[in-house]
Each structure stands twice: as C-alpha cells, then as structure tokens.
C-alpha cells in the first residue's frame, strides 16, 4: 500500500469523522481490556514473556543453524523447501507452482507476509484468481483495500458498510447488516471456494527447527479447510518464524492469543508435519530484508515479533489514526520499526508517528523494546538525511540557543514579551498548536528572573 501522503496527513483525514474515531478507539480499547483480563489469569505471565523473549533471542543468535535444521527435517518429512531472498522471488516461486499444476484459481488464508510481498497483485497480473478466506480479509479484498490490522483486518469497517458490500458482491438482501447473517453468507460463499480450489496458501505462525513441522493458528478454520481439501499446500513464512523445539510451543501458544484477543488459545492450532497422502506440501522461506534487520543491532529484536497485534490495540495513536495511515502492510508500533528497514525514504515518517508512551513495549509478549527502537530509528533517519531541511535548521537553531545560557535567557524574555504584546504572532492558523488548543499564558517573569530577585544571595 504505497502512499504519497505521510502518516500525519492520513491521520488528519481519518480524524475528520470524530464519532468514527471514537468508535475505532473504543473497539480496540475493548480488545486491550480483554487482553488485560486474560493475562491477569496467569500469575506467571511476566515470566512467560521473559522466557519467550529469551528463546527468540537464542533463535536470532542461531538462525542460520536453525534454518538448516528446519530445512533438513522438513525435507525428511516429505515437504519441499524453497528459499526466496525477496518478495519478487517469493511471488515467482508461488506462481511457478501454480503453473506447474496448471492452476489459475487458489485460496489463501491469512498471511501478512504475502501482504508484504504484494502477492495478490502479482498473481492477478499473471491471470491467477486469489480468494482470501479469512472473513475479515475477504471483506477488505472485496473492498479492494489492504487489511488495516494484522489480526483484525477489517476493524475499520462498520457492519452496515459490510452489509452493503455483501449486497453488491454476494447478493445478500439490501440493508441486512446482522453479523450472524453476513458471516453465514460468507461461509456459503467461501465453502464453495474451499471445495473447488486445488491450491491453498497459508501463512505460518511458528516453525519448529527440531521437527521440521509448522503451526498455523486460526479461529475460523479457514487455513485447515483450504489446506486439507487442496492438492497443493504452500506455506509462506519469514525466516524469523522459527523456534527451536516443539516444547517451546507451549510458551508461545499461551502468549499469542491472550495477547491478541484475550482468548486463552485460538480455536485451531494446527501442526503440519507431513503432506497428506497424495498431496504436495511446499514451504517458502522468505528473507526480504530480515537478514539486514538482523544485522542492525539496535533493531534486530523487532524480528522476535509473533504478530499478535497487541501493540496496535494498545497504541493510543493507532487507535486514533487507523491502520491505513501507516501505509504499510504491518501497521502500528511494530510496523513502524519494521518498515524503515525495507525502505527508509518511504517510511521515514512512521517512527515519528508515536508519542513514545511505551505502552506497546509493555504489552509485547516477546518484550520487544518497541518505543526505544522508535526513538533509535528517528536518530538513524535524521543522520541518514531523511528529514526535511527546514526541520534540521530549526533543530540546529534550537540546539544553539539552548546550549548558551545568555542566548536562552534573552530569547525567552523576547518570546514571552511578543506573545503578550502581539498574540497574533503565535495565535494564528500557521501555528499547529493553536489550531485546536490555546497557547499557554506568557508570564512577565520567568522562574530564573523570580529567583534572581527573591532567592539568590
């Protein structure tokens, strides 16, 4: 989802409809509260997070060994393993498998990696029809939009709008916006796809180095319906999805859904180890910038992410700007530390789309220091020249003033005098502070002036 507009411009647009912002904020806050309720059920919660973080750290330190072990074991299990250095290679591998089997229609369950690779667009250009089978993803697909949230793809859509969309594309009666009814309509629509499509693509939540198996988590069962009915199953995964041992799943499955939605576990946690008799199973291991991020010491921990979305649900900025304002496949705080690795120029705005409040780091089940990384990305982006010249000049002037006590003192005095005498200088529409807020009153005397008069001996 490429955009010429920055996060702040897109967020401003999102904020035109304030009741809708309130609705969006409250919906996501409710999910944050469900998460809180679920995690308080486990007194060992904080130790679980720490253990998960340490396991993921071990994975990063031994990623090449784990990748080789996983490949070896997966091949022994009868799975074909492919390697893709970037999005283009990933898409070409998927297309070549479609071509090999003469398949032009396929189903796909949720995979943020394929969003990152823009697989659907690529396949559409090559005449392949892809049906997204997760209900939320199907809704945004019909609306020709990308998901706005990694776990809740259509969290920005109202049921009445979904009713209209389904009326247009699935022929449901006009004006029916009942979630139960609409879900049932989607069930019928998608069941036909599951029964007729010969190739299914799924994402991967966890891949186990020691066994060569992978785990896919869904609530709907759409990954399973696709994979178990198709002749060919392709599972696309980022190389950071590995965990060392099967027993580690106990930790990650306890953390994942409690963090994501407040459920104790997803409805289905499916462990794929061998292809079904007569079926082909493929895994595509995708780098696409991950090995570069691994080399960035300050940012490598971002690769620990298990894509639960908790940082989005808790983020006060995300809740009030919407997922699309981040103009990247993975929105929110985690997306803002992942995206600049892929393209610093295009995503230079994202690390600034935060107040650095730190709530994201606290809910993160693998303890990624998200807000600290946002701060560090700001430094990198400035140093590498991705900030506007005017901002740099202003900052230089500010730094000079603040490092010289005399200059600071007189600038403060003059500034306050001007605010008092010529309020129009600051109280105007060019001042973004003043647009919706009053300026603080400028007192006659600063504290240091008071101190000199009253205290200093």
């Amino acid at each position: 989802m490429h955009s010429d507009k920055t996060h702040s411009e897109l967020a401003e647009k999102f904020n035109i409809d304030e009741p809708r912002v309130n609705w969006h904020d409250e919906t996501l806050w409710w999910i944050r509260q469900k998460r809180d309720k679920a995690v308080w059920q486990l007194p060992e919660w904080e130790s679980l997070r720490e253990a998960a973080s340490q396991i993921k750290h071990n994975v990063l330190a031994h990623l090449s060994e784990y990748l080789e072990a996983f490949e070896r074991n997966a091949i022994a299990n009868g799975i074909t393993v492919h390697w893709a250095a970037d999005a283009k290679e990933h898409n070409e591998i998927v297309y070549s498998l479609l071509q090999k089997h003469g398949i032009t229609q396929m189903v796909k369950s949720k995979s943020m990696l394929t969003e990152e690779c823009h697989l659907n667009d690529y396949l559409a250009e090559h005449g392949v029809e892809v049906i997204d089978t997760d209900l939320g993803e199907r809704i945004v697909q019909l609306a020709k939009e990308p998901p706005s949230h990694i776990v809740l793809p259509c969290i920005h859509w109202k049921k009445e709008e979904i009713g209209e969309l389904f009326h247009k594309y699935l022929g449901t009666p006009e004006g029916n916006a009942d979630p139960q009814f609409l879900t049932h309509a989607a069930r019928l629509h998608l069941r036909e796809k599951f029964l007729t499509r010969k190739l299914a693509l799924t994402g991967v939540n966890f891949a186990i180095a020691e066994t060569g198996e992978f785990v896919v988590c869904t609530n709907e069962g759409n990954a399973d319906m696709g994979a178990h009915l198709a002749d060919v199953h392709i599972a696309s995964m980022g190389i950071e999805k590995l965990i060392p041992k099967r027993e580690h799943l106990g930790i990650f499955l306890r953390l994942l859904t409690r963090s994501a939605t407040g459920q104790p576990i997803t409805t289905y946690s499916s462990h794929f180890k061998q292809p079904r008799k007569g079926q082909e199973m493929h895994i595509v291991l995708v780098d696409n910038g991950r090995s570069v991020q691994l080399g960035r010491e300050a940012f490598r921990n971002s690769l620990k992410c298990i894509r639960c979305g908790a940082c989005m649900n808790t983020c006060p900025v995300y809740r009030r700007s919407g997922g699309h304002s981040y103009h990247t496949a993975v929105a929110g705080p985690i997306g803002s530390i992942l995206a600049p690795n892929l393209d610093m120029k295009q995503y230079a705005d994202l690390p600034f789309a935060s107040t650095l409040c730190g709530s994201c780091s606290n809910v993160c089940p693998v303890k990624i220091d998200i807000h600290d990384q946002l701060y560090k990305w700001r430094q990198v982006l400035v140093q590498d020249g991705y900030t506007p010249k005017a901002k740099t000049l202003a900052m230089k002037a500010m730094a000079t003033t603040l490092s010289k006590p005399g200059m600071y003192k007189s600038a403060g005095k003059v500034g306050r005098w001007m605010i008092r005498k010529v309020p129009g200088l600051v109280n105007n529409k060019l001042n973004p502070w003043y647009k919706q807020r009053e300026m603080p009153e400028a007192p006659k005397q600063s504290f240091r002036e008071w101190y000199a008069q009253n205290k200093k001996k």
Partner: protein
Amino acid sequence: MRVGLFVPCYVDQFYPQVAIATLQLLEKLGCEVVFPTRQTCCGQPMANSGYEHLTGDCNELFVDNFKEFDYIVCPSGSCTLHIKDHLHAQDEGGAQHIRKRIYELTEFITDVLKQPIKATFPHRVGMHQSCHGQRGLHISQMSELVAAPFSKPESLLQQVSGLELVTLDRKDECCGFGGTFCVFEEAVSVKMGKDRVSDHVKHGVEYITGADMSCLMHLEGILKRQNSPVRVKHIAEILNAE
C-alpha cells in the same frame, strides 16, 4: 543535603509558579535547594526529534551546572528520564553521578526524603499519569503488566487534606503531547488530549494534576479552547498548597 533544582525550560518560561512551588516544597521538607542559574534545557526536544547528535553542548552545560550536587531534583518525569537515559559528557564521571542522582520530584519525596506531606487542597482532582514518569521512571505501576499496583504521586496526593482523588476509566493512557509530536501530528495529538480531558470531566474533576507540566500544558490548551471550568495544576503546587 544539597539539592540542585533542575527546572525544565518551558516551566522556567511559562510556568514559573510550578518551579516556585517545587522550590518551596523541597525547602519545607528540609532540603538546601540551589537553582544553578546557567541551566537551560535537558536536550530532549532535539533528541526525541532524531537530533540527539546536536545535544552535546546542552549535555556539557548540564553536567557543569549539576555535577556538584548530592541530588538533582526536577518537577518533570520526562526531562528526568531523558537525563537518566541519555546524558553523556566529556566529564563522564560527572554525567554518571547525575544520571544516578537525578530524581523526579514525587519519587524524590517518597524514596529519598520519605517525609509526610502537610498540605490542604479541598478539591476533586484527577491524576494524569505521564508516560515517561510512569513507564520510563516507574513512579507508578503500569496497567499493561501483571504486577502489584502502586503510585508514588498518588500516595502523596492521598496525604493532602481535603483532596478527593477520582478513578479514571483509562488510568494511564497517553495524553498525546509527545514533544514535537504535538505539532507534527496535530490531529491525533489533539484527539488524544480531548479524550483524556473528557475522561477527567466525566468523573467531575475540578483540577487535573500530574507530575509533568508538558502534558498539563497540552491538556490546558484544550480545556481553555473548550471554555471548560476545569483547571490544571502541577502536583508540586498541590503538595505545596496550604
């Protein structure tokens, strides 16, 4: 005990009464307080904007001003956190001393002075938990963690005679100030501030207080634009009120 009073630049210029209250409160609690007059700013406005590399001179100045004190106390969690995390200078020993000995005002009272508060403020008050004080300095427990609750500033407010502290719907949501965020992300910043304000208003507060004047300045700007009777007051002013 010699305490160096570190007054954030915008407090010095716009909220002198907050610095005066801090000074008087610390003196009441038995500290010898000095305000080094050559101080300016901690450098956070540049650093949070990605220009930490321009803060070298500010850092040198800060170390020169404060390295001699037993403790450095500041009525702002955010500025304190910045110094704790980012202060480095040629005199690294001096910088390290400051990083270890700098305290936000309320944690200095609860953790170092450990003295009771004698103040009167007969009003209904909402406490705004500023993020850097809370999540950075850990002056209050964070709602995201499975951990026993506590709040250093609230424990002080509870000692104030006549003060009625309300419980908010969202007890530690960010107000949206965020330094330069408040102008570069104006729409979201203001919306966050409006939502914080309405949580306090809904619970019938007369005053919104907090340990960071920057958040309160932002909320005050919104309250005034709304012509609201609700006022903001820094916690130092309340703890110093008689």
